[in-house]
């Protein structure tokens, strides 16, 4: 039996064809029963039909969401599209006539033949790539910030100063290792433009130098007989 809903999936009386914008999960009745009178569960988050809004932010929107918006700005996306993208609570970009949400994370255009399917897949890939790039950018920003706090280790500092510097250096090294592990130089558009292989090689050189810098700082600290020093985890 089909349920009748408003375009934003608010249930109405009567029986009829599935309304555009109604989620597949609603048809399959996968929503949490206790919560289903006020909110619908889509797999990743709850949707509130009365207001036409999600009850939590789009999980794909974070972290690095601000950077994604800057990228959208740079790509010439018009203001209206940016505003809908900017709001992580809105439902199907406020366009339930032409789009529906499959799990609280992915918006899919109403199918109009195979072209629409291709478009939907393309959009998902683009969104995934934007997410990966945003994540890599966040890792890069974090390790650069840690690096700024990690430099300046030399002889004759106090033990608390060494602990602080070694902790920052460990954070920096961890961030750099994660950046390389996630193959960020093959995901960030700027790194691709600057040649990914070269970037990766040079980032590895930098990482090796940072590990040496940790060793140099730890040696200074050891000479000052500092106890409970930060150990460098194996990456």
């Amino acid at each position, binding site marked *: 039996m089909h349920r009748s809903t408003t375009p934003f999936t608010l249930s109405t009386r009567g029986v009829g064809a599935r309304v555009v914008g109604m989620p597949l999960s609603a048809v399959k009745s996968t929503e949490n029963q206790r919560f289903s009178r006020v909110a619908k569960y889509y797999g990743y988050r709850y949707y509130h039909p009365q207001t036409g809004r999600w009850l939590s932010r789009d999980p794909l929107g974070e972290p690095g969401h601000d950077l994604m918006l800057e990228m959208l700005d740079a790509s010439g996306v018009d203001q209206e599209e940016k505003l809908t993208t900017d709001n992580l609570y809105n439902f199907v970009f406020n366009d339930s006539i032409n789009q529906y949400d499959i799990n609280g994370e992915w918006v899919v255009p109403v199918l109009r033949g195979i072209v629409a399917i291709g478009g939907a897949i393309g959009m998902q890939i683009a969104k995934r790539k934007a997410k990966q790039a945003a994540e890599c950018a966040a890792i890069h920003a974090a390790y650069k910030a840690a*690096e700024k706090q990690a*430099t*300046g280790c*030399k002889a004759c500092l106090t033990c608390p100063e060494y602990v602080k510097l070694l902790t920052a250096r460990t954070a920096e090294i961890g961030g750099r290792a994660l950046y390389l592990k996630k193959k960020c130089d093959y995901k960030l558009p700027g790194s691709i433009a*600057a040649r990914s292989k070269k*970037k990766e*090689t040079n980032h590895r050189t930098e990482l090796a130098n940072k590990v*040496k*810098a940790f060793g*140099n700082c730890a040696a200074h600290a050891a000479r000052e007989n500092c106890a409970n020093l930060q150990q460098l985890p194996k990456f």
Partner: protein
Amino acid sequence: MPLPTKEDISPTSGADLDECAALEHFFGKNQSEASTLFFENPEYFADDLMWMGRKAFAFYFPSLEPYIISKESAGDADIINALIGILKARLDDDPVSIKDCHTPVLRVLMFARENLEKFQVDTCVNGDVAGELSDLIERVQTLGFADT
């Protein structure tokens, strides 16, 4: 010599994150101001030399020299490792970038090799730094650029 443009510092026009950091730190700065940055946080700002464009590298590399030869760099083994990493990368990827700062590059490398004890380079941690410096000096010399 005119200041490097944004494109000189970031050939990808700010798309690359490392170039972008270099742009943020160095754009609009003359050599004296850049030198101040290297005294302020040598290792952090020296990293930018790895990523900036060819013209900008030739312009800003000489600004590192005052720090290297100063008393301030005593005990700073990290800057020597950074220096080796930067110049190796430049020689591997873009040896022409050394052309316009051939003389200061050689001068800095030779100073570092001859004053290694000043930088307190621990070979257990840093490896054969003297050997690496000698290799770099040889590579730069064999490039055969004549400084004008």
